[in-house]
């Protein structure tokens, strides 16, 4: 692969998070010494509020903070990001809170935050000379990879558990590309993808062999929240956890903005949200452990059903460092969470959003989260992809004949 010609913007090297070993930029993801995850280091230059504000109305306004080439906007991509930050007064009121915001990432091109990470992975994969965009996925990533590859005009190869929600199967298949359902759970699919990645040199598995680049895409959620709040950080933020990448990268984004002087340095607390049926990180947090014991997932929140979360230990670090907490909720509470967000704010989140809202409610009731402090929650995906979760519990108020008499008789006036 022609790495000499690679333009990865401000990225300068890959560094092991565990042992500090340093590597040249390239298609690496695990440390050769200790298997620890590699993290990108940067040399930032020319980043200012003005430069960002003058940028495009998508994640490329933060291009100077990402491992992507300077011409990234001119190559075909899905242009995700700059989703709305919604002031959620009705939800706040129902939970006894003061100032609450929902970062509604269901507004992305394929309706989840995964478009952010995939766009960055695609840009880096191109620079690194890969030919195929691939992934193992719990569903949303599958949609995002298939769509991004279609847009870029390259082949995709997507692997998902065969018991995935029908909606997520269809919305991935429609983009064409190679799409494989695997008889196993996500952790099985993930393992298979790691083994395939060891054989297929020119396949970029976005969350495996280009993961250091991919993961940086989640920083844009943090950047946007700070910019949309008027260049300041919230007091508290609640984030769903699957592998834990999104949570750690939002924290990284806040730290970078502080270091670059783009926002005032102030304390903030990071909270994590899981479904009880797959809550290895919440369990480790509650038990005071710093390692995460893998579990076999059993929850309707399939997008979060990663039993062996790669970034689990780092999530624990961030949450403990900032004074936050990690909560988990039952599937029934997840469904309630989806309904509550929809009924109070007109936002239909997927099960991951239900997990986050239900955990917010629980964190308020346990006192772990301060109802007076300004809080942001992430709605990371769209309810239309997990219709089965709410189908049994919602429906029309009545069915009537097309007559005024019937309407009156229904008692709905």
């Amino acid at each position: 692969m022609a790495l000499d010609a690679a333009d990865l913007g401000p990225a300068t090297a890959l560094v092991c998070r565990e042992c500090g070993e340093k590597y040249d930029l390239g298609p690496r993801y695990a440390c050769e010494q200790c298997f620890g995850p590699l993290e990108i280091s940067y040399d930032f230059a020319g980043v200012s509020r003005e430069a960002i504000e003058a940028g495009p109305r998508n994640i490329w306004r933060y291009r100077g903070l990402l491992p992507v080439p300077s011409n990234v906007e001119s190559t075909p991509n899905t242009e995700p990001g700059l989703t709305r930050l919604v002031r959620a007064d009705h939800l706040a009121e129902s939970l006894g809170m003061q100032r609450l915001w929902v970062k509604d990432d269901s507004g992305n091109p394929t309706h989840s935050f995964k478009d952010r990470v995939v766009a960055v992975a695609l840009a880096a994969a191109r620079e690194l000379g890969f030919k195929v965009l691939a992934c193992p996925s719990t569903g949303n990533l599958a949609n995002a990879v298939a769509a991004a590859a279609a847009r870029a005009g390259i082949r995709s190869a997507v692997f998902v558990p065969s018991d995935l929600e029908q909606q997520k199967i269809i919305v991935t298949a429609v983009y064409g590309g190679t799409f494989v359902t695997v008889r196993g759970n996500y952790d099985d699919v993930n393992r298979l993808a790691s083994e395939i990645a060891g054989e297929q040199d020119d396949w970029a598995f976005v969350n495996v062999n280009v993961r250091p680049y991919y993961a940086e895409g989640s920083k844009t959620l943090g950047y946007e929240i700070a910019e949309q709040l008027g260049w300041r950080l919230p007091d508290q933020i609640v984030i769903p956890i699957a592998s834990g990448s999104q949570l750690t990268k939002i924290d990284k984004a806040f730290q970078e903005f502080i270091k670059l002087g783009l926002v005032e340095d102030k304390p903030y607390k990071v909270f994590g949200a899981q479904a009880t049926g797959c809550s290895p990180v919440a369990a480790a947090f509650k038990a005071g452990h710093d390692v995460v014991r893998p579990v076999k997932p059993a929850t309707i929140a399939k997008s979060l059903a990663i039993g062996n979360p790669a970034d689990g230990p780092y999530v624990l670090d961030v949450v403990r460092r900032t004074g936050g907490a990690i909560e988990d909720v039952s599937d029934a509470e997840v469904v309630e969470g989806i309904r509550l967000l929809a009924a109070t704010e007109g936002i239909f989140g997927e099960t991951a959003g239900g997990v986050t809202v239900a955990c917010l409610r629980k964190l308020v009731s346990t006192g772990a989260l301060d109802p007076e402090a300004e809080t942001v929650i992430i709605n990371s995906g769209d309810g239309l992809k997990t219709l089965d979760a709410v189908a049994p519990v919602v429906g029309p108020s009545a069915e009537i004949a097309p007559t005024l008499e019937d309407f009156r008789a229904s008692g709905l006036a």
Partner: protein
Amino acid sequence: MSTVSVRIPTILRTYTGGESEVKADGATLREVISDLDAGYAGIAARILDDGGKIRRFVNVYVGDEDVRFADGLDTATPAGSQVSIIPAVAGG
């Protein structure tokens, strides 16, 4: 003595001369890793930490089972088993 097949991840193939799959002997995973190290000096220290435990960012499978769900290094490796060593920093 049972012989098993071990799948080697890309980052350890420098030890195996580029081979992605090698043979090793041992009745348990612990014995298999020590036999691997006899053939490919230094490889065990990449898989195990200083305390002799499986490193936190390595997943090891015997057949389809993550050994963390079985008996860890004491997991039995019957003749003909497939052992896979895989970096954990993936997924999501």
